[in-house]
């Protein structure tokens, strides 16, 4: 039977085979790590900036994937957590003179609180209502940022200092590229461990059938809140590093479009499965760049491409096991 499963998953998409054989898997991982390490030297400055952005989206998409893919909760306002992380670091370093590394835990705690604020009241809501409430939450955060004195109103915050580490300042585009490489790797490892944890199994059951899970002693409130909090922390870490990378943030960096783009990365690649989500993040960021030669048509072509993917692979390009059925 298990042999049959292996055959089935091999047939299911040419990519899945890599995951089945552990040796092929490790070879692929090592190859990817080597490629990540040498990429800035091969592709040059411009590509390095784009790749950094793609890695930022890998972290964001993996965070949203905890909420959407693992726990099955639709969230259309995920950029809010990204904003909370970025603004917390911006405010604490600019107005309170805190060191970036000291501000980072505050950003995580602030995002976790925001996660509870959005998660608490919406726990009883099902998908479509939840989508509306989370969308509203995202907009509230953005509008607050645009109107509050402390967040610099519409012009945002600028002059955020780039962090120092062991007496060396993270400054150039290449520096940040490597920082985001490390962040993405940590995000992947944490997401993989979460998926296989007890909590990961609780999410799996709640996502499939809340009532059955609750009837078997799984507290759906705790389990869903945990997903929101962990997703929020992912978003805040991405936001914090985003803020110091650019040195300036404004409310428009955290718009609804941003939330949709992150969600698109999650859905496109294959909800719930880490390689799929990574692939989705890269497609969402690199796609429009690779099509740049098409000029004004590029976004149209990109959009049609996305539609075709969804038509022919509704569970994503590289779907998770249960989504594939």
């Amino acid at each position, binding site marked *: 039977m298990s042999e049959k499963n292996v055959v089935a998953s091999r047939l299911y998409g040419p990519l899945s085979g890599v995951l089945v054989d552990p040796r092929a898997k490790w070879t692929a991982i090592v190859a990817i790590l080597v490629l990540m390490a040498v990429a800035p030297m091969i592709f040059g400055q411009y590509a390095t900036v784009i790749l950094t952005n793609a890695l930022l989206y890998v972290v964001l998409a993996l965070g949203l994937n905890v909420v959407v893919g693992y726990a099955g909760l639709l969230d259309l306002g995920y950029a809010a957590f990204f904003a909370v992380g970025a603004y917390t670091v911006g405010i604490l370093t600019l107005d309170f003179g805190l060191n970036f590394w000291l501000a980072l835990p505050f950003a995580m705690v602030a995002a976790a609180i925001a996660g509870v604020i959005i998660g608490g009241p919406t726990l009883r809501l099902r998908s479509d209502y939840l989508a509306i409430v989370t969308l509203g939450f995202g907009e509230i955060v953005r509008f607050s940022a645009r109107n509050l004195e402390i967040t610099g109103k519409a012009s945002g915050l600028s002059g955020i200092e780039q962090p120092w580490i062991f007496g060396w300042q993270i400054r150039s585009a290449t520096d940040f590229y490597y920082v985001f490489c490390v962040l993405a790797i940590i995000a992947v490892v944490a997401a993989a461990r979460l998926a296989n944890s007890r909590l990961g199994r609780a999410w799996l059951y709640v996502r499939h059938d809340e009532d059955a899970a609750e009837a078997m002693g799984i507290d*759906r409130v705790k389990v869903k809140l945990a997903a929101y909090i962990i997703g929020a922390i992912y978003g805040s870490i991405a936001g914090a590093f985003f803020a110091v990378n650019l040195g300036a943030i404004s409310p428009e960096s955290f718009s609804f479009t941003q939330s949709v783009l992150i969600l698109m990365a999650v859905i496109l690649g294959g909800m719930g499965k880490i390689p799929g989500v990574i692939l989705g993040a890269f497609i969402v960021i690199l796609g429009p760049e690779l099509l740049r030669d098409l000029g004004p048509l590029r976004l149209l072509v990109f959009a049609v491409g996305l539609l075709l993917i969804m038509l022919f692979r509704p569970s994503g390009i590289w779907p998770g096991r249960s989504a594939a*059925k």
Partner: protein
Amino acid sequence: MTSETMNNDVVLRLKGVEAGYGRIQALNGVDLEVRRGQIVALLGANGAGKTTTLKTISGLVRATSGTVEFEGEDITGRRASDIARLGLVHVPEGRHILKGLSVRENLELGAFTVRDANLRRQRMGEVFRLFPILERRQHQDGSLLSGGEQQMLAIGRALMHGHRVLLLDEPSMGLAPKLVLDTMRIIKRLNQEGTTILLVEQNARLALKLAHYGYVLEGGHVRMQNDAAVLRADTSIVQAYLGD
């Protein structure tokens, strides 16, 4: 039997329980007792409040008035997951088999709160002994099993959890006649092995053959209650309230 030992025998007691959905009141003061080691049948027409009674006991529906006691402890208003952890396990109507997960994974859901891996393995073995078909199909998608097998899976999952009392909601629903009899046989066997069962069933004759005691609900009230043998003998009751 003195009245005190009789009280100790009652594992589940509902007193004046009222509950409903929004403005619709489904239970208008239900009093009910389940004694240890018994099968108690909960009968009545559609909309009489049978399923709501089970849901109120297991915490899926909140009681607006009255109390639910489990083994002498007031569990009214507790969360469903807490109540399940106490060993009062609800097998809901419609079975709730998790689609896309294998039979084995569905069973593992039942043992989620069991931290001891040996105990989990032992319970899985017991479930497979009781339902050999589940062992043969353990790697198949649970939602692709036949109706009868899904019912076995739903019961098996509850057994994985480690129950003291099972609440079974319409286990025979949608099953072919032979499978209905198989299901009833399994319920009887579980009971003989020590499980206390509160059984909601449309098929009153069958339920009363199995049960020690029966309650008939009507309009959210207990309309009558008696030993199952007495209820069964009264053909007018069966015809008037229970259908065939």
